[in-house]
């Protein structure tokens, strides 16, 4: 990639995520008949949190301090593996989808480890639930990545996008639509959105992701929130590339990507505003169903004889 393309990628990856999160929150507020927080509220929140001092509980170790940092670093590196505006990614290589999935789980692992490090049984419960949801989400994620990458016969995202049929790919190739549906479920699960988890809840028994970050404050919490926004942005970028022909490179690509991201965020907001959260025992069924859909898609791909 050329230097301007890398710069554009970095600008998009570093600056756009809180705005995308803001759109999702705004749409949810509209559906509930409220005016909602301003679109730029997440930036103000981050600025406020970064200006505070760091407070960490007594008895916490370096794991607690590392949790938010590693979590943020993992999703940022994952963002460098995913093509955003252009046809390539700064760190993309043949096999980057595996690294992408591994980085997502690394971030999740450190978030859980930091929660366990506080020694609070309450946070331990959240970590346990997060681990369970993660275990059910990952088969879906890997099968979707297989569905995207098998037609290109390459485990690289840039190659997979390059091998798509021209134009709107899912019209010519309905399996992309199936992949998009499953990827959307994975996006909701990975980002702890309704119907899997509720980012706005503050009721002890229903928190899953929220409870794990309860003890973080100040800059640590800013890193956690920023990391969540980046994660949403990065997985949504996959979804946008799956559904839209993003023109490779330059401002046109950036505009198309941001429009797609806004649409995905809007869809997340609509789901959040209109769907009730699943009961905890029903979540695995939901995720298993998504993974089964993706598995059927992969099987269809193989049955065609041209995976």
């Amino acid at each position, binding site marked *: 990639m050329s230097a301007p393309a890398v710069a554009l990628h970095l600008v998009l990856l570093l600056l756009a995520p809180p705005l995308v999160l803001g759109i999702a929150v705004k749409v949810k507020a509209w559906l509930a008949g409220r005016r909602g927080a301003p679109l730029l509220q997440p930036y103000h929140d981050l600025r406020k949190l970064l200006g505070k001092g760091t407070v960490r509980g007594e008895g916490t170790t370096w794991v607690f301090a590392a949790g938010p940092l590693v979590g943020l670093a993992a999703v940022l590196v994952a963002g460098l593996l995913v093509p955003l505006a252009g046809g390539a990614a700064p760190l993309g290589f043949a096999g980057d989808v595996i690294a992408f999935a591994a980085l997502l789980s690394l971030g999740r692992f450190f978030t859980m480890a930091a929660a366990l490090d506080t020694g609070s049984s309450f946070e331990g419960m959240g970590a346990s639930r997060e681990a369970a949801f993660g275990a059910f989400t990952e088969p879906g994620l890997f099968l979707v990545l297989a569905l995207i990458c098998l037609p290109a016969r390459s485990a690289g995202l840039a190659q997979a996008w390059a091998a798509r049929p021209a134009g709107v790919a899912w019209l010519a190739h309905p399996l992309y*639509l199936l992949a998009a549906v499953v990827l959307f479920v994975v996006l909701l699960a990975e980002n702890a959105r309704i119907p899997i988890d509720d980012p706005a809840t503050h009721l002890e028994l229903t928190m899953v992701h929220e409870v794990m970050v309860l003890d973080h404050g100040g800059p640590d919490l800013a890193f956690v929130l920023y990391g969540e926004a980046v994660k949403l942005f990065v997985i949504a970028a996959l979804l946008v590339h799956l559904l839209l022909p993003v023109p490779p490179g330059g401002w046109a690509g950036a505009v198309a990507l941001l429009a797609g991201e806004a649409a995905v965020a809007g869809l997340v907001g609509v789901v959040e505003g209109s769907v009730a959260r699943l009961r905890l025992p029903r979540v695995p069924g939901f995720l298993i169903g998504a993974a*089964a859909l993706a598995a*059927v898609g992969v099987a269809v791909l193989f*049955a065609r004889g041209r995976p």
Partner: protein
Amino acid sequence: MTGAPDVLLLLVLVTDLFIVASGRLKACVRATAAQGVLLAALPLALWVPRGDANLAHVVVIGVGALVVKAIVIPSRLLRSAREAGARREVAPYVSLHVSVLMGALLVMLSLWLARALALAPAAGGGERAALLVPASFATVLLGFLMLVARRYAVTQVVGYLMLDNGVFIFGQRLVGAVPVLVELGILLDLLAAVFVMGIAMHHIGREFDHIDTRALSTLRD
């Protein structure tokens, strides 16, 4: 694998899995209705673009499937479930999670089966949709799964309907070869069968205060 018929068949597979995965009786029946709509569109998508089949024949089959499979049977089924006082959950013998996994495995099995079987070439020559045979096998097999793995009579009727839907999909290979009267006869047979089952469900419900078929296999004098 491109074109409208394959999109429809992929959606049929999705509704199959949804029916197996859903825990609500109403959701099950509504998904069956959605599948009926897809099946009604299928003959049109398969035969109209090529223009080598009798158009009136194809339209009659499509409209017949729409009326019977998507409107009459589901509404009738919901009504008799309500009248029989069925509970809202589907009461599976095997858990829903296992059902979904079994369903996915059965779909893969039917994809393999469709490749492994040497079928006679379709009427009119050439396969029109790559997924036609696998989707019909999968729908039949998942219908069997619904028949054996659910406890209430309503869900068993849903399984029977899926069975018939699978046969209907397979029959689309033969649209040019089978007279329209035979197809309509099959649709009417199905309708009659569902009415009989509705009456049977009503009687089971009145006799035992529930429509749990488990009680039927433990009857003794």
